[in-house]
């Protein structure tokens, strides 16, 4: 059967519908609901979103939003999505070392996923952790003031 909201997402969708005067506002939060359920948002789920929000929202509106914002994964990512800031403060404090270290450890290039679909390493823009670099984000969690030993320890602890 094709995708439908999980029970949790269905509940949250019901609540969201009461919070905004215009149903178009539901597009961004609903994309997140799908991403939480599935890990990514493909065209099929976008069609589902459009149908759940209802007229006048069409697939094109949802796709337009999903393709503008970087946090919506339109392709599956690894179980652990590691995002590393490459902007100025993190660069000055040596964040590139984290990227290089992880790519070498996993045998992948930046932007790629390991063959077992466990890890994806992505270079990203400022995450608002500038004073605590070197840092990385794994899924929703920030890890700050890192040394390479700590990076290894964190990675090895992920199951």
């Amino acid at each position: 059967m094709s995708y439908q909201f999980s029970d949790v997402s269905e509940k949250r969708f019901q609540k969201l519908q009461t919070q905004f005067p215009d149903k178009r506002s539901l597009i961004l939060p609903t994309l997140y609901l799908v991403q939480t359920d599935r890990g990514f948002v493909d065209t099929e789920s976008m069609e589902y979103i459009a149908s759940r929000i209802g007229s006048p929202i069409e697939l094109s509106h949802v796709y337009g939003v999903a393709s503008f914002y970087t946090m919506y994964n339109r392709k599956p990512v690894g179980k652990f999505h590691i995002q590393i800031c490459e902007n100025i403060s993190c660069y000055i404090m040596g964040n590139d070392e984290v990227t290089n270290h992880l790519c070498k450890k996993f045998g992948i290039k930046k932007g790629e996923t390991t063959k077992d679909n466990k890890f994806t390493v992505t270079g990203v823009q400022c995450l608002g952790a500038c004073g605590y670099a070197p840092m990385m984000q794994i899924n929703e969690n920030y890890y700050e003031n890192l040394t390479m030993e700590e990076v290894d320890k964190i990675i090895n602890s992920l199951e």
Partner: protein
Amino acid sequence: MPETRILTQYRGEKDSHTLAHYKSKGGYEAAKKALSSMTSDQLVDEIKKSGLRGRGGAGFPTGMKWSFIDKKSTKPKYLVCNADEGEPGTFKDRVLLEELPHQMIEGMIIAAKAIDAHHAFIYIRGEYTTSINRVQAAVDEAYAAGLLGKNILGTGYDLEMALYQGAGAYICGEETALINSLEGRRGHPRLKPPFPAVAGLYNSPTVVNNVETFSAVPHIIQNGAEWYAKMGTPKSTGTRLFSVSGPVKKPGVYEITLGTPLMTLINELCGGMRDGKKLRGIIPGGSSVPILTAKECETANMDFESMADHKTMLGSGAVIVLAEDTDIVETTFRLAEFYAHESCGQCTPCREGTHWVAGLLHKIKDGHGTMKDLDLILSLSVNMEGGTTICPLADACVGAVRPTIQKFRSEFESRLVKENKHVA
């Protein structure tokens, strides 16, 4: 010199994010005062008198922004909190969101009354998971305690508040782009006028303020505008949170009165440079503002006027420190690349300009650039600034690149290919 902790007084205390803690410190008394004994005009006047200026980046007087709302308008009025902190180098709102969310919510309640809004939204950047969880919990607590919803504290005032999670677009920190995003659209800035005060969210009168701006409001209402205006300088009143990053001994967020010398912040609060490194320069207000050389830093104070005298800005209060061993060509490239990545693509000078600047800097940093490339960046920058675009993102790119090339030109020139290399 110690910090002047007004907004961050209870930072670091156990459970500082909870309603119980906030109330035990006199929290929500200012909201009670505002809702039960002050008119909206009195509130606007009080904030005007305090001299509070927006803490997001532009530094626009907050009271004046509120006064632009036409109270006679029959349309609903909306209040929006800009918690889409994204200016590289900035991480101060995170402290207020994660550790002191009730202070911001109280400020929003007061602001809502001042502009007669009954719907408020908090737009938080998507990556700030802890902030989102803490603010959502705080909003839920406030609803349960009768501080939000219908008939707040028995005063007859209604206010609904909801969170909205951004999705990783820097441009949504610009208030009209944020409004578009909140409406479920791509984050494209809008042409002004009309300004949001006239036609903002859902085409209705809207005020958008930064997290830190709202967080200052309860203190002003509780202690009075005069008390607040006594801190800082006549045109830059109060305190501000500065995010300090780079090779200093103690990077982090510091709250100090405006007008404090930049080097006092660096040497006394941040403990000076790390590992005996020498200071090369400082970007004093987030990645978009012109860099100061080490010599200029000696005379710069952290207030709007002194920054203007030094031809730079206080911006978002992000102080990025560069040491002598920092590769300034690389840092400039990283910033240009950031603006190219974040350009929304509506305006040609920005969409094309930022990519050209980033591309040319890439060439230069890798040692393939010529003097012509360096000068081309400067000539391109003229077409990217001064109102050729809808929003200031292209100007920000220019601010991050041109002054650095002008002040540190020899560094860039030393990376160019020798002119006669390809001859013969």
